[in-house]
Structure formats: structure tokens, C-alpha cells
């Protein structure tokens, strides 16, 4: 039984308590509202950049594209220009499809043994769908949140907001009342997608076997972020103008702590700060790493062009010709065959 998810869950629970008690109990608003977010951004930028530059320095001497199609060779053999690109354009298309539609994940398949001796391969589409829903919902949520950071609010943020809250949900009961001023579709999709990705790790025994605490931690953390965000936006409510005052204060380097924001807001902010600070040291760095996948971003022209390792060490060589020049006389004396007879011997033989 793999119980690693317990550690991750406890870690997120502790983070929640740290922020909640820190603000509600000890009144450390300035710590969780100013110091921690700034530190988190600094850690994210400095260590993220360092990690990318480190990857940039690593050696990629050979073309190592994974092939999913016929390489371009003879004109009468049909090649696949995107799956096995020989041109820069093909590489761009392949990278764009990879980054925007997670094509590698779409290829995920599951081998099944049916009743007979035959193996069959099934398209395993739900991880891909869940990942797409999760990433795009997160992107929309980030763009939506720019309304708190930019004054005046840019048009594209307003556009995304209005599209995102296109569907109206209004629930009116005495205990709960949800739906005004609008419900963002992305918040619900994000929560559902993260829940699905978490349940997939927990309930699928094979995935669970290979899952580590570092796999669960971001999921629980993002679940916490989505949960606290939804709680604030639709249930407990928060003074949005005050939130914006704090956010714009941070990005204009004139930090202020408006009153009456409450524990849930600071928990939300603390979770986001932790996610940012954790980012450079975690598997979340696939944000930058995807662009640097040598199996995806190189042209497959290994037959058309000779690729020489650019930093090959100039090796000192001693050819056979030079060797024979050095020892020709001795070789002839010993009766060994030589390729070029020495001049004297050649003359003797002529006579």
C-alpha cells in the first residue's frame, strides 16, 4: 500500500494552519500579505532561471528525436513531416501541438489481454482530457486574476472574464446563495480536473504504485488554492476592492495591508506563494522543460545531414601510412608485407 499521499496531505494541512493561525490568531497580516509573497516571487524567478540556464548548459550532442512516423528518405517513401520532421517548420508545428495540445499524452495507450491470447491496445484518453481541462482552466484563472493586479483592467482580461462567466448559475436557498456577480466556469473545471487527477493517482493501483509524495503535493496544494478561491468568490465573500488594493500595492512596490481581508484570503495567498516558491524545485518545471525536450525540438534529418558533435576534441591520430613510413625498413627486413616498397628494394627487384 502506497501511503505517500498522506505526507503531502499533511503538509498542505500544516500550511493551511500556519497561514490561518498566523493571520487570525497572531495577526501576522504583513508577513503573509507582503513578506511571503515577495519572497516567493524572488525564489521563483531566481531559482527558476537558474534551473533553465542549467538545463541550457547540458550537452545535447546528438539528435535524439523519438519517432512516431516515417523519416524523410527516398522521394517515393511517404514520410510524416510533423511526427518526424525534417524541416524547421515541421519542428515548430510539432512543438506547438505538443505545448498547446499535449500530443505525447494523447498517445497514451493501455495494453489489454482479452479473453483470448490476443493483446489489444486501447486509447487511454482520460488522462489527456483531464490534463487539458486542468491546464487551460488554470490559465484562464490566472488571466482572470490579472484584474486584481492591473489598473485599469486590460481589455483581454475583461474579455476572458465575460466569456468565462458566460453561463449563469444562481442558487438561492436560505443557507447558501451562490452566483452573483457571476460564476467563473474555469474555477469549477479547475476544481473538478484537479480532483480527477488526484483520484486517478489514488484509485488506479498501477499509477498509485509509482506515485511519490512530490506527485501528490502539488495536486493537494492546487486543490487547496481552488477550494479557498471558490470559497471566497461564491460563499464567504471578501471585499474585492481591498484585495485589489493589496495586490496592486505588491506589484507597484508600495505594499499595503487593507483591513478586513480575513483568514481564508490569506490562506489562498499563502498557498499560491508556496506553489510559486516550490515551483523551481519540483516537477512543475515542465513549464519550461517542455520547450527544451530534445526528443521533440530537433529536426530528424539524421540521414540527410551529417551531424558532428560541435565540441569534439581534436584527437591526435597516427595513420597506417605514417606508421609504415616509420618502420618500413625494419618491416622489410623481418619479411613483413608492406604497401609501399622502399626505393632501394624496389630497384633491386627490378634487376
Amino acid at each position, binding site marked *: 500500500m502506497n501511503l505517500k499521499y498522506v505526507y503531502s496531505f499533511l503538509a498542505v494541512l500544516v500550511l493551511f494552519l500556519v497561514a490561518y493561525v498566523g493571520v487570525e490568531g497572531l495577526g501576522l497580516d504583513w508577513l503573509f500579505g507582503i513578506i511571503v509573497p515577495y519572497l516567493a516571487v524572488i525564489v521563483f524567478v531566481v531559482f527558476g532561471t537558474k534551473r533553465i540556464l542549467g538545463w541550457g548548459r547540458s550537452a545535447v550532442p546528438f539528435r535524439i528525436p523519438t519517432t512516431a512516423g516515417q523519416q524523410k528518405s527516398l522521394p517515393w517513401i511517404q514520410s510524416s513531416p510533423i511526427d518526424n520532421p525534417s524541416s524547421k517548420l515541421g519542428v515548430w508545428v510539432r512543438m506547438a501541438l505538443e505545448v498547446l495540445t499535449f500530443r505525447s499524452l494523447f498517445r497514451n495507450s493501455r495494453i489489454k489481454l482479452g479473453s483470448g491470447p490476443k493483446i489489444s491496445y486501447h486509447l487511454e484518453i482520460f488522462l489527456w482530457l483531464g490534463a487539458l481541462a486542468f491546464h487551460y482552466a488554470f490559465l484562464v484563472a490566472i488571466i482572470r486574476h490579472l484584474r486584481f493586479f492591473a489598473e485599469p483592467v486590460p481589455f483581454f482580461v475583461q474579455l476572458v472574464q465575460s466569456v468565462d462567466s458566460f453561463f449563469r448559475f444562481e442558487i438561492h436557498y436560505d443557507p447558501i446563495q451562490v452566483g452573483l456577480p457571476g460564476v467563473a466556469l474555469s474555477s469549477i473545471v479547475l476544481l473538478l480536473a484537479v480532483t480527477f487527477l488526484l483520484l486517478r493517482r489514488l484509485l488506479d493501483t498501477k499509477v498509485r504504485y509509482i506515485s511519490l509524495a512530490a506527485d501528490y503535493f502539488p495536486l493537494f496544494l492546487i486543490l487547496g488554492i481552488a477550494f479557498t478561491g471558490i470559497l471566497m468568490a461564491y460563499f464567504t465573500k471578501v471585499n474585492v476592492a481591498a484585495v485589489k488594493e493589496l495586490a*496592486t*500595492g505588491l506589484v507597484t512596490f508600495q505594499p499595503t495591508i487593507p483591513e478586513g481581508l480575513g483568514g481564508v484570503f490569506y490562506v489562498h495567498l499563502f498557498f499560491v506563494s508556496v506553489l510559486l516558491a516550490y515551483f523551481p524545485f519540483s516537477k512543475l518545471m515542465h513549464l519550461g522543460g517542455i*520547450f527544451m525536450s530534445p526528443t521533440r525540438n530537433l529536426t530528424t534529418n539524421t540521414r540527410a545531414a551529417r551531424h558532428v558533435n560541435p565540441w569534439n576534441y581534436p584527437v591526435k591520430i597516427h595513420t597506417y601510412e605514417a606508421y609504415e613510413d616509420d618502420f618500413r625498413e625494419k618491416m622489410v627486413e623481418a619479411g613483413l608485407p608492406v604497401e609501399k616498397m622502399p626505393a632501394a628494394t624496389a630497384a633491386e627487384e627490378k634487376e
Partner: protein
Amino acid sequence: MNDKNKIIAGLIVFLALFTFPVWYNLGKAAPAPEVILTEKAKEAKVCVMPTEYMRANHMQLLDHWRHEVVRNAKRVFVNADGKEYTMSLSNTCLDCHSNKADFCDKCHDYASVSPYCYECHIDNPKGE
């Protein structure tokens, strides 16, 4: 491969996007707008509910009012202090806060919220 230049270019693009709010605001602080109260609102001193509650929850109160009036034909709201108000956006809220542009819109624009109240209700029912 030696793609250092491309990697650094990509990194710069990402950092430019990431710091968008910083260079978009250019150090210009944007404190929460001060709403302007009309004379009538100043005179009344208290809203139907405490100010802190109204700041975060006024939309829920209005939703509740609409529900009570439209579904339950109940038109009187009694607040915690036992004071009675008519449940009406046009006749109660906008009676004091008759300056929509300086009151409602200020925060709504600031927080990029577009409520649909005014798709039916008119700004200033009394034409003041």
C-alpha cells in the same frame, strides 16, 4: 546543439509576461477608490446592514431581496437592529446612493465586475 541564445530569449519572454502587472502599472499605486456619499447617505449614517458587510456581501443581499419580492411577494426587510426597509434597489438603495457613477461604478470598474442590475433598472429613477 548550442541553443543558448534561443533559451535566453525564451526566458526573457517568459519573465516579461510574468512581470506584466509590474510594467503595466509602472509603479503607479492603485488604492481602492473612495466612494462618494450623497448628502442623503451621509445624513442617514447607516446602511441597511453594517458597512463591512455591505462591502463584501451587497450582491447577495440584493439577490435575496429580489428572490423575496419576486417569488415570495415579501417586500419588507428587517435588519439586525429591527429597522424596516422596503426591498427595492431603485427605491431604497438608489434613494440614498443616487450617484451611480461615483458610488456603484467606482468599485465595479476598479474590480472589473459587470453586474446586470442596470440592464433592467435605470440609474437614477428620480431623475435627480
